[in-house]
C-alpha cells in the first residue's frame, strides 16, 4: 500500500444534515402549496375567456386622449425618484464612511454604523410611505422622503463596500507627507470612489423609478394613484396607456443610465 486515500470526513453527518435540510424544505413547500390551494378561489377560472376578451383588447388599444394626464403623473414619478435618489446619494456618503471598516478605527462604532444601515433596509417602502403620509400629509413630498430613506440604506451599504475596497497605500502616502484629513479625503479617497458612487446612485435611480410607482397606493404621489383609479373605473384603455408609458420611460432611462455607467467605471 503506497498511497491510501483518507476516508471522506463526516460523510454520514453530512448525509443526515442534507436529509434534514431537504425535509424542512419539503415541509415548507407542502405547507405553502396546501395553504394556497385552500385559500384560492378557483371559481375565477370559470369565465376566464370572457374576461380576457373584455380586458385584453382594450388594454392594447391605449386611449391617447388621456396622454396629458398620464404623462404628467409619469413625470411626477420620475421627479420623485430623482429627488429621493439624490437625497439618498448625498446622505449615504457620511454613512458609507461610518460603516466602512478601513475608515473607522473603533470596531464597535463601525458595527453600529453597519447595523444602522441594515435597520434602514429592513423597512419596506410602503411602510415608510405610510409613516410619511401620516406625518407630512399626502402628496409627492411624502414620496420623496420615502424614496430618500429607503435608497439611503442600500446606497450606504454599497458605498461602504466601495470604500473598503480602495487602495489604502495612497492614503498612507498622503498621511506620511503630512496631509490633513480633508486633503486625504479629497485627493486620496474621493478620486478612487466617486465613479463607483455615481454608478451605484444611477443604478439605484433605475430601481427607484419602479419603486415610486407604488407610492400612490397610500397617497404619496406618483402614477400609482392613477393605476388604481383606472383599474377601479374599469378604464382599461387608460391602464394600457399607463403600461405603455411606463415601459417606454423606464426602458429609456435604463438604457441611458447603463450607457453613463459604462463610461463612468
Amino acid at each position, binding site marked *: 500500500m503506497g498511497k491510501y486515500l483518507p476516508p471522506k470526513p463526516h460523510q454520514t453527518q453530512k448525509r443526515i444534515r442534507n436529509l434534514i435540510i431537504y425535509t424542512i424544505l419539503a415541509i*415548507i413547500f407542502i405547507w405553502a402549496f396546501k395553504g394556497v390551494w385552500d385559500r384560492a378561489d378557483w371559481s375565477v377560472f370559470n369565465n376566464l375567456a370572457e374576461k380576457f376578451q373584455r380586458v385584453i383588447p382594450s388594454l392594447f388599444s391605449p386611449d391617447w386622449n388621456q396622454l396629458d394626464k398620464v404623462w404628467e403623473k409619469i413625470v411626477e414619478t420620475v421627479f420623485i425618484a430623482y429627488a429621493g435618489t439624490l437625497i439618498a446619494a448625498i446622505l449615504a456618503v457620511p454613512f458609507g464612511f461610518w460603516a466602512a471598516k478601513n475608515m473607522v478605527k473603533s470596531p464597535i462604532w463601525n458595527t453600529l454604523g453597519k447595523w444602522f444601515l441594515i435597520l434602514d433596509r429592513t423597512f419596506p417602502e410602503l411602510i415608510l410611505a405610510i409613516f410619511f403620509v401620516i406625518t407630512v400629509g399626502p402628496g409627492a413630498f411624502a414620496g*420623496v422622503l420615502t424614496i430618500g430613506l429607503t435608497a439611503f440604506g442600500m446606497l450606504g451599504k454599497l458605498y461602504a463596500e466601495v470604500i473598503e475596497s480602495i487602495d489604502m497605500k495612497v492614503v498612507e502616502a498622503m498621511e506620511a507627507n503630512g496631509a490633513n484629513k480633508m486633503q486625504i479625503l479629497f485627493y486620496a479617497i474621493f478620486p478612487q470612489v466617486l465613479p463607483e458612487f455615481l454608478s451605484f446612485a444611477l443604478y439605484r435611480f433605475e430601481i427607484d423609478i419602479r419603486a415610486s410607482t407604488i407610492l400612490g397606493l397610500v397617497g404619496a404621489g406618483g402614477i400609482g394613484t392613477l393605476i388604481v383609479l383606472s383599474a377601479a373605473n374599469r378604464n382599461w384603455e387608460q391602464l394600457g396607456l399607463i403600461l405603455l408609458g411606463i415601459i417606454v420611460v423606464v426602458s429609456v432611462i435604463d438604457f441611458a443610465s447603463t450607457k453613463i455607467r459604462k463610461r463612468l467605471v
Partner: protein
Amino acid sequence: MTEKNKNQKSKSNVHSLYPRKLKLQITWIFIIVLLFYFYSLYETGADFVTLIVDFDKIINALFNKMLPPNWEYISVAIDPLIETIQIAVVATTFSVLICIPASLMAANTIVKNKFIYQTTRTILNILRTIPDILLATIFVSLFGIGIISGILALTIFSLGLLAKLLSETIETIDPRQLEAIRASGGNIIQVIWYGVVPQVLPQFISYGLYVFELNVRASLVLGFVGAGGIGTIIDTELNFLRYQNVMAILIVLLVAVIIIETISNMLRRRVV
C-alpha cells in the same frame, strides 16, 4: 468636486491635478444635476424647511396617532401574514422553475442562435420594466380579486429579475467545460446538466433566496389592489384611519421580514 475647484482658484500657485477641460465638464454636469434637483423639489412640492422647523410637532403627531399599537390586533394580523408568506413561497417556486429555460435561452454561451437569444432578452427586459403594482392590477382585472392573481403577478415580476441574474451568471461561466463535454459528444441536456449546473448552482440558490425576500416585501403591495396578502388589512385599516391597528400590523410584518432575512442570509452564507 466644486469645493476642490474653489480651493484651487484661491491658491493659483498650486498646480491642479486635473486638466482644465475635465474640471469644466464636471462643474457643468454638477450644475445641471443640481438645477434638475431643485426643479424636481419644486415640482414635488417638497418643503424641507417646514419639515425641519416642525420636526418635533410631526414626530408628536406620529406618536399620538400610531402609538401605542393595538396589541390585540396582532392576532388578527397573523393569518394574513401566513397567507403572504405562502404566496411568496409559491410564486418564488414557480418563477424559479420557469426562469431555468428562460435564462438558458437568454445566455449566449448556450444558445448560439442570435434570433432566439435576442427575442428572449427583449421579452425579459420588457417584463422587468413593468412595476409589480401594475402587474398586480392587470392580473386582478383578468382573474378577479384573490390570491391567484397575486401569485401570477409575483411570478411574472420575479421571473424577469431572476432570469436576468441567472442568464448573466450563465454567460460568465467557464466555457471550456461546456466545450469539453460537447467535444466528447454530449448533447445539449448533458452540457447543461454537467457543464452549467455545477457552476451556477450556488449563485442560483442565492438568487432564489434573494427573490423570495423581495417577494415577501412585494406581496405587501399586492393587498392594496386586491391580490391577497397582508396588504389587504393594512389598506382597510388605513381607510378607516385606525392607525394603531396599522402600527400593530406593521410591527408584525417587520418582525417577519427581519426573521426571514436573517434565515436567508444564514443560508446564503453557507451556500456561496
